């Protein structure tokens, strides 16, 4: 067998070209990359039942507490009369007019 024949055969074989892995394979092997908004729309989380029950109970208690709460006093500071002084010389002007 001539080395030249091998060379010619190798060159001919290289004329059959195939591509590497397509992007769809990445998705199949590694999974689809999840963006945060996709997670918010379609994601799910798994929590243990006791934790779920505890969270539900806590929410119930907080709701009940909120409903029972008294109305809060109006905002603002209390009025102080410490600096209160009557007027020394009240010049009262009486305006008379038709009743």
């Amino acid at each position, binding site marked *: 067998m001539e080395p030249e024949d091998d060379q010619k055969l190798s060159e001919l074989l290289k004329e*059959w070209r195939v591509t590497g892995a397509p992007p769809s*394979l990445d998705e199949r092997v590694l999974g689809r990359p999840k963006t945060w908004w996709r997670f918010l729309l379609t994601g799910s989380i798994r929590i243990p039942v006791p934790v779920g029950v505890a969270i539900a109970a806590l929410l119930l208690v907080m709701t009940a507490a909120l409903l029972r709460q008294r109305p809060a006093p109006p905002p603002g500071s209390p009025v102080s009369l410490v600096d209160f002084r009557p007027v020394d010389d009240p010049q009262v002007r009486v305006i008379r007019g038709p009743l």
Partner: protein
Amino acid sequence: MTDAEFREAYGRHKDMLHRFAWRMTGSAAAAEDLVQDCFLLLWRNSTAHDPQRGTMRSFLIGVTRNLALKRLRRYRPYDELEEESAVCSPIDPAGRERGELVAQAVDALPPLQREALILAEYEDLPLEEIARASGAELAAVKSRLHRARGNMRRMLAPLLETRGTYGTGR
């Protein structure tokens, strides 16, 4: 194997495995399935690869070739894996592109000859690595490759004699 190691192995070897699987099966869709199964197996059984016994590349080629041979046995149950006496006839090149004719000739080889030819000619793997990946003796791989080249020369004789006559390849 950590997630990062798995991704690294996938990124490094996916293209080579896909090309190898495509040429072994003759189908891009089948190649995608085989490579996916190969990495699924690696993920589920990451201790299967023993670095003492060979590289990750050899291991993955070995897994893919086993899956490809399994598939061939399912779809072509009467094909012998290694027909030492197989002598392929020249193919008829009429009206077809050279790349297509080469693909047909590779597909006509007995599977073990095909595997040796693909890994040596297309992926430039050393014979020792081909032997490791296919679980065969070095002498057996040399013999398969020699017979594969002989068969290819016979099948593609019309193209080797009259280069440039039939199409331009793809």
